[in-house]
């Protein structure tokens, strides 16, 4: 099990706890003094964190704690929202995400996203999988068939749809649609996947199918999962980060966070006293 590497910030005024630790796995995401807001609303306050490559990290916390805002800022999806501003640094794959010079198209290829509700494109199942490939011109036409099969097999959808690749995706079940969206994201070979409560709209069987995939796809892909389900966080993630009121309250190895939370807020949240 890889250990978490996080610099400890000596800031007594800032009541957060980060467990320092031992070894030096590479960090894929490095966030420093991040502040995010919309107009007057200050949503994320002075967040510092580091995520190791190839792990599954879950972001937990009550509604309004800023975890989804944080997630969406990593691939700059919040840019279009009116009044959005950021301060600080998000360093992902050795690129400064928040800089104006960054190639957003390429960033978003390397950092995929899955949403709360499945959102297949209005095109055939096959074209959905190929959408990113075509947009980024990643492969010649001849390779398309193979790519589609590959991606669908990876998410376990091939057997269900191999004979109706030209059909509309909206005829699939919710779980299948989400798997399709996952296949679509995987096809462009991302290094990171951002997931915003990816299974909250799914039935338990589909939830299990999706979760099993995560462990299969690691360590080539790093997963950052926002989840409202503590059980899910415990099930799937190596590390957990607890957001509260816009601040990163506590982060560390999942088992430690759940069995031995250091901050009172974390304790309250995990035990259900705040939610």
């Amino acid at each position, binding site marked *: 099990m890889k250990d978490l590497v996080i610099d400890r910030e000596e800031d007594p005024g800032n009541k957060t706890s980060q467990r320092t630790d031992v070894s030096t796995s590479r960090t894929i995401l490095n966030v420093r003094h991040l502040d995010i807001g919309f107009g007057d609303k200050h949503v994320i306050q002075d967040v510092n964190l580091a995520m190791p490559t190839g792990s599954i990290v879950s972001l937990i916390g009550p509604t309004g704690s800023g975890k989804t805002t944080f997630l969406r800022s990593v*691939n700059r*999806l919040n840019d279009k929202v009116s009044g959005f501003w950021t301060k600080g640094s998000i360093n992902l794959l050795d690129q400064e995400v928040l800089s104006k010079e960054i190639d*957003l*198209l*390429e*960033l*978003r*290829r390397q950092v*995929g*996203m899955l*949403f709360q*509700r499945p*959102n*297949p*494109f*209005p*095109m055939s199942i096959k074209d959905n999988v190929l*959408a*990113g490939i075509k*947009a*980024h011109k990643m492969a010649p036409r001849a390779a398309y068939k193979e790519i589609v099969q590959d991606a669908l097999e990876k998410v376990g959808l091939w057997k269900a749809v191999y004979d109706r690749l030209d059909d*509309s995706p*909206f005829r699939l079940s919710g779980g299948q649609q989400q798997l399709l*969206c996952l296949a*679509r*994201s995987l096809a*462009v070979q991302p290094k990171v996947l951002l997931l915003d409560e990816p299974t909250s709209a799914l039935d338990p069987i589909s939830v299990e199918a999706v979760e099993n995939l995560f462990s299969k796809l690691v360590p080539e892909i790093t997963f950052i999962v926002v989840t409202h389900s503590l059980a899910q966080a415990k099930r799937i993630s190596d590390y957990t980060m607890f957001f509260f009121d816009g601040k990163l309250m506590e982060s560390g190895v999942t088992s430690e966070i759940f069995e031995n939370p250091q901050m009172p807020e974390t304790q309250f949240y995990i035990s259900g006293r705040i939610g």
Partner: protein
Amino acid sequence: MATSVVEDALANSPDDHGKFIPAKLGRWSPITVISALSTCVPLLVLIGILTILFKKAYPAIKYNGGGFLIGRNWRPGNFYANPVTTNGVQHPLLASYGALPLIIGTLESSVIALIFAIPLSVGAAVIVAKKLHPRLRGFVGAFLELLAGIPSVVFGLWGALTLGPLLSRDIYPVIASHAPNIFILKYFRGSTGAGEGLLTSSLILGIMIIPIIASTTRDLIAQVPRLAEEGAFALGMTEWEVTRKVTFPWISAGVIGATVLGFARALGETMAVAMVSGVVLGSYPTNIYGTFTTIAATIVSQLDSALTDATGLAVETLAEAALILMLITLLANVGARLLVRRVASTSLPIGRGV
């Protein structure tokens, strides 16, 4: 003109939004009865129109025969000689009507109008719905409403006295001198006229139908769920790629519907065309700038003189022309609804984007 296709969808939606049970009101209460009677009025008027039109056109149909659809000479005949009777229909001597130039004129002016209107309308709608500041959207909307509200005769006035002469003097000659003598482009050569003609009329028709297409497209774009487009952005697509791959397919049914409705409107447009076409019966324009006519323009400009035909054939022939026009526009309107339904059912989740 038709109200927005989006409103259509709302009106035809199966839920009982805003409804309450008639039993509570009483089947025969005054409100129910009066409103029911009122609702029958359009139906009765429609039946009346069809009946009268058929009755009036019948003698002309009998006399003009199939030649009406393929003939091109519009000859009311000799009003001063004694009337003659053929096939049981009384008519002036040597009367012979052919409506092909009218039919072709109607269709080609409307098609060219669409060619102008569609790219401009869709392009403008995309910018307004996606990139314009919300405050400005209402502003642009006002211009669309203005364009839709300007009376057709005012368009004709502007076309005949301002736009037409400007185009014929300054723009058309430039095009005409550079157009190569091949294929379709050869119709852009030749004499550019004095302000009336096919191209100018089609241009004005195009301007007149822009509001329908543009405002419907704009409303439809605004209704595409954000989640669908965000998925495409998250995958790393540019705005144009997202628009092409997600937005357009989502709204395609509705846009097609609006386009065909615009087409139907152009087919029936009367006054503006009458004022800018030159209303020339019995011949075809030799190039795209030439004078021509449409069915509607013909009826409006010929009805006066048709009334002087004592046998009534001239008026009856106009009725026949009106019948043809009605059929064409009916086909277009029905076609719009069928197309919308068909496209919507094959590619999209039901209920989205009309």
